[in-house]
């Protein structure tokens, strides 16, 4: 794993997002699933229950890919990076609207864009020569 930036990033981000997803539940008691205004993680990042579940799923997907193989990590990093880029752009229009079912605020948008840049850059930029997964890769 230490030889592949994609696997390392997927494991680090996966663990990070899993932790964020779990911590999110500590600030969303009494917040409904799709509430447009939720609790604040670290006093900054607004989340509702749906947002927490999304973090848990993204974290699990990245972590599983990271511990699996390089190809899975590359695909997952690039895919989730692209999704975060779209969410970051959409978030600029969703903040303050009735369609904000993830309770996104400006701090979330910054974090989503930052995640998108790093995941996309590593996903399409690193580990370019990848063989099919073998036993040595696992």
């Amino acid at each position, binding site marked *: *794993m*230490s*030889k*592949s*930036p994609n*696997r*390392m*990033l997927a494991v*680090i981000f996966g663990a990070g997002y899993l932790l964020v997803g779990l911590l999110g539940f500590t600030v969303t008691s009494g917040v409904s699933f799709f509430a447009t205004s939720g609790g604040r993680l670290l006093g*900054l990042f*607004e989340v509702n229950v749906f947002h927490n579940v999304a973090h848990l799923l993204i974290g699990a997907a990245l972590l599983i890919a990271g511990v699996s193989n390089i190809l899975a990590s590359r695909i997952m990093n690039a895919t989730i990076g692209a999704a975060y880029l779209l969410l970051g752009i959409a978030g*600029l229009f969703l*903040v*303050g609207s009735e369609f904000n079912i993830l309770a996104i*605020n*400006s*701090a979330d948008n910054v974090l989503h864009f*930052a995640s998108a*840049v*790093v995941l*996309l*850059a*590593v996903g*399409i*930029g*690193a580990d*370019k*020569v990848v063989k099919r997964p073998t036993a040595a890769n696992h």
Partner: protein
Amino acid sequence: MSPITRTWLAFAAIGAGLVHLALVISSPAPFAVVLVGLGIAEFGWGVLTFARANLPAPRLVRVVAIVPLLAWSLLAVAAGVFHTPWLVTSLPLMPMAVAGLFELFAAAAISVHLRRSPGVVRPAPGSARYLAALMGGAVVVGLMTAPALAGTESGRHAQPHGSHDATFAPASSVHPGH
């Protein structure tokens, strides 16, 4: 070229492309046409540099990276000689300077690469070192690009930061120009 340097080059090209594209709406038509082409080329080259194993068209890009700076300098000279200040004032100083720094970095890094070992593929750095360098490069380019974008006409039309959610911005902060 080291994968780390290639990553920084890609970020710099994307940053320069974004700044040049943001300058389009406030520029006179002839400048706007050039800026659109330049911005798209820089952005595309940055993405290709990430995606491809080799640096795309390094000799051509080294020249193209310098041309906008030379053209900007000539405009400044012409504005003084012909008493036409709009030639310079239509291109805001700070965004142009930031884009110029990115271009200079690209030209310098590519020149060093071509002089040293154009065909040699260097061994990949360790994952931790690569990721740390990538994140460092992203932060530096982000910190330079964000104020440059804010200094363009596009940036002035953007939603004032903090207005999405008043508590995100420090309560006592005052943002000039908003």
